[in-house]
């Protein structure tokens, strides 16, 4: 089926183009206008690509707010219906994906409230600015703060090297799934979906400090998991 092929192609392009630390920022505007006009013109392939592209992350986010998988699936479907109905009046002030994720999070929050579930984004301890969050166990360092157990090489040269290994991919997925919900939300939007930090804050309604700390913790945890994997034995 055509749409699936299309999604995969989008994915490949996305995977291979990222070397910088702010990977998706440059791509948004031109493509976005084009995407929006295609959607408004009723281009089915464009819509199919879109719903497949964001499904996994949308479901992950919805599940952070609502316990029940069926309800989370419902939230995702409802979000798409809202997107369809809102397309004509979408003003393009935000990126399309940011708009979609904002609708999703708002809906998931509302459903979550009914289930008396909410994510705590604010109960973060803020330490000194110098070392707000330890990224590693203290025993990796000597008392002076120098490496006691320094990082060893991973034997991979690029993100693509990691992405080609099935085990590593599973490991990343698993690690994300075990993170606290607030960290999952931030890393999903920022690193998996490539929203800018401002967009992430906007979608989740969190402060700059919180987003910083959550992103740092989440990435550090995934790095640790990869480290364990690539240096075992």
């Amino acid at each position: 089926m055509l749409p699936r092929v299309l999604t995969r192609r989008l994915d490949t392009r996305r995977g291979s183009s990222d070397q910088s630390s702010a990977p998706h920022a440059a791509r948004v505007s031109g493509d976005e206008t084009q995407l929006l006009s295609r959607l408004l013109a009723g281009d089915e392939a464009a819509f199919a690509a879109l719903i497949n592209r964001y499904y996994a992350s949308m479901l992950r986010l919805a599940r952070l707010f609502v316990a029940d998988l069926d309800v989370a699936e419902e939230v995702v479907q409802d979000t798409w219906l809202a997107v369809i109905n809102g397309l004509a009046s979408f003003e393009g002030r935000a990126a399309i994906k940011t708009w979609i994720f904002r609708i999703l999070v708002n809906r998931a929050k509302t459903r979550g409230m009914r289930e008396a579930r909410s994510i705590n984004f604010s109960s973060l301890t803020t330490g000194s600015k110098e070392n707000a969050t330890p990224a590693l166990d203290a025993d990796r360092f000597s008392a002076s703060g120098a490496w006691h157990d320094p990082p060893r090489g991973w034997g991979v040269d690029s993100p693509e090297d990691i992405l080609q290994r099935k085990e590593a991919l599973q490991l990343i997925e698993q690690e994300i799934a075990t993170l606290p919900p607030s960290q999952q939300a931030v890393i999903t939007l920022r690193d998996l979906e490539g929203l800018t930090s401002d967009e992430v804050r906007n979608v989740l309604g969190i402060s700059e400090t919180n987003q910083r700390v959550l992103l740092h913790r989440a990435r550090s945890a995934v790095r640790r998991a990869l480290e364990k994997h690539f240096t075992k034995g």
Partner: protein
Amino acid sequence: MLTCEQLTGLVTDYIEGWLPMRQRFRFRLHVALCRSCRRYLRQMRLTIGALNGLPRQPLPPAKEQELMHRFRAWQRA
């Protein structure tokens, strides 16, 4: 001088460009002089790169069809 431990705590802020100029300079100086921290920074970038390119699970066909149906209906409306 920044310690290695402090550096690992600042790595996200550095990569995201959130460090004030002075801190940024201290960070770069440390990385230039410290092989292990250079490796740590590289591994963090590899991690982020992998996260950026993580493959996505597509929509289950039944849900896709339902949404395509709704999309077509919206077009016709």
